[in-house]
């Protein structure tokens, strides 16, 4: 059983500070939905509003079209997984998992049965009698999930639960979380500042900044067609090229920068006019070193300053004539040994791989 979650004009204020401002979003039943944003952007506040720990100052939280105002966290069909997991250290693993059943007066045998089922779901069969501190980080993670699932909530809320794990484990848990979500088929609402996490797991993501929603959409949509300069630079990496619009050709706009003219794609909802201050964005992986026969819409002269080896990629840091910096990445499979610090080269990129947006502040400012 999954449920829709709808935030309707939700604002949360602390004094005169808006932790969340006029948030409107509808999460569909059975969806894996992520709120992505930097720390302090209000995503945790939204999660607390959904779980019932924080009443919205304005607006409503609806779960299955039912207004949740005045309904406490212990009466909502949601379960929350805390950032630090908040497992009960004095109880065994089974007791932890069955806690929600215990408080509902479920009999001991029934509780044990359910705990064993859930232990199987999280691949920890037979470990129910252990104490929490005897488990590894990843196991604790899974116990927290099982504990939250024990009451069969309609919505599972996750507050950056993977942030304490090391990289490898985090990557494995991403896949595992996704699998568990498919198996239990309930709505997952996930909070994270890690765009990699959000992109790999979610059906849809909402990008937040300073209490407001910047963009809601499918992962590739948000990545490929960011609606604001903030989203363009927060989700993945992007090189900004500042300038003025000098011409419009269909859905493309021409931007005049200090280093030359480029053609970039406009977003349907963010039409530009000639003379508008704007930013064209091009991602490091969309910048290419042209080979014979390549013909790119745009060309940039750059001067290589430094490079770093990342494993699958080699990242180059270069400067333009105006002094603007640019980063581009080349797959390690391509031989780039001839390019070193100080080389002057020409890069190319397609206008379809570059978005142009009205000027606004970036995530990295």
């Amino acid at each position, binding site marked *: 059983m999954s449920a829709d979650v709808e935030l309707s004009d939700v604002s949360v204020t602390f004094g005169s500070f808006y932790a969340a401002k006029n948030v409107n979003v509808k999460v569909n039943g059975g969806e894996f939905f992520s709120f992505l944003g930097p720390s302090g952007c209000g995503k945790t506040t939204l999660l607390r509003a959904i779980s019932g720990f924080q009443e919205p100052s304005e607006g409503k939280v609806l779960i299955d079209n039912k207004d949740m105002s005045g309904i406490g966290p*212990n009466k909502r069909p*949601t379960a929350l997984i805390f950032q630090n997991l908040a497992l*009960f250290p*004095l109880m065994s693993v089974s007791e932890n998992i069955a*806690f929600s059943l215990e408080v509902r007066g479920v009999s001991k045998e029934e509780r044990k049965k359910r705990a064993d089922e859930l232990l199987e779901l999280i691949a920890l069969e037979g470990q129910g009698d252990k104490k929490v501190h005897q488990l590894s980080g990843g196991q604790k993670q899974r116990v927290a999930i099982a*504990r939250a699932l024990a009451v069969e909530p309609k919505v599972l809320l996750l507050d950056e639960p993977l942030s304490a794990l090391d990289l490898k484990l985090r990557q494995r848990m991403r896949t595992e979380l996704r699998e568990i979500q498919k198996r239990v088929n309930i709505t997952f609402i996930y909070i994270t500042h890690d765009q990699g996490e959000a992109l790999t797991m979610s059906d849809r993501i909402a990008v937040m900044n300073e209490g407001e929603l910047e963009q809601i959409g499918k992962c590739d949509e948000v990545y490929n067609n960011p609606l604001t300069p903030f989203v363009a630079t927060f989700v993945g990496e992007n090189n900004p090229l500042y300038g003025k619009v000098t011409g419009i050709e269909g859905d493309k706009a021409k931007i005049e920068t200090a280093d030359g003219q480029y053609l970039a794609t406009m977003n349907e909802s963010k039409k530009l006019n000639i003379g508008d201050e704007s930013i064209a964005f091009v991602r490091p992986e969309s910048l290419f070193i042209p080979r014979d026969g390549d013909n790119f819409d745009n060309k940039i002269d750059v001067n290589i300053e430094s490079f770093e080896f990342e494993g699958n990629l080699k990242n180059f840091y270069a400067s333009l004539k105006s002094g603007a910096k640019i980063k581009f990445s080349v797959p390690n499979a391509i031989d780039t040994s001839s390019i070193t610090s100080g080389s002057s080269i020409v890069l190319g990129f397609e206008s379809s791989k570059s978005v142009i947006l009205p000027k606004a502040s970036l995530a990295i400012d």
Partner: protein
Amino acid sequence: MNNFLFTQPFFKKNGKAVAIYFLVAIIFWFVFLVIIPQFYMLDLSFRTNVPPLARGGPEDYYTFEHYSHFIFGSKTATDAFNFVDLGVFGRTIFVSMLVTIANLLFCYPIAFYIAKIANPSTARLLIVSLIIPFWINELLRSFALRILFANEGVINNFLTGVGILDQGILFITYDIGLYTGLIYAYILLMMFPLYNAIESLDINQIEAAKDLGSSSFRTHWRIVIPHAKPGIVSGCTMVFMLTVGALATPVVLSSPNTLWFPQLIYQWFNMNDNWSRGSAYSIILLIVSVIFVLTMMRIFKVRIGEIIK
């Protein structure tokens, strides 16, 4: 010899001066403040009560008479047992237990409120209001309560004055003043261990329990109280021990017809000039209290290490 001592790791780590200071302080405390007085009392409690000049003489010998006096009374008494002293003793233990429980019930909500609900400035204000009355001597605090609870005291005068009662309540006669005084006397020793224990609980634990559907009562029962157990036991132990041994409060607040066991001990020492019997009674109180506390710890499955932590 000296060289051997000074090459010990303890001396190397702390330096000579500090190490010697530590050793002297610890030995002084342990030998002069713990071992000698206790052993002296233990020894005295098994000796006949003789004037100082007769010490070491033929009348000074080891005997169980003081202990048997506590149980069976004087040799000339007609009763089979010393009902008076045993009664005072039993009542002291029993009332101390109730005082400890009352103290716990009273302090728990306050400690929880200060530790987990109040904002920092309110919490500070509350803690200061708890501490300030204790800058006044215990005896004076008891007298203050006496003024409140006396038959013609502040409370009775108020109640009769505004017409709620025709006649004042005999707070002192019924020992209500005494019980209140005893609860109040050592309240901080319950409050602070409890506060410290509850304060160290991660607030997410409480929220997680709530989120999983737990009622407020159950959250306390299953999460907060188990976490605070060492603090509860440590508070209860200290309050019980001090209440059982309280003297100033009972002297000022108990009714003329009741005695608190330490008052009895005091009488043997100071009024009847029988130090041996006073010592025996003290030893009995000490041993019974320790056994009582250890039993309670066994029942509630707490180890001594947890309490000291």
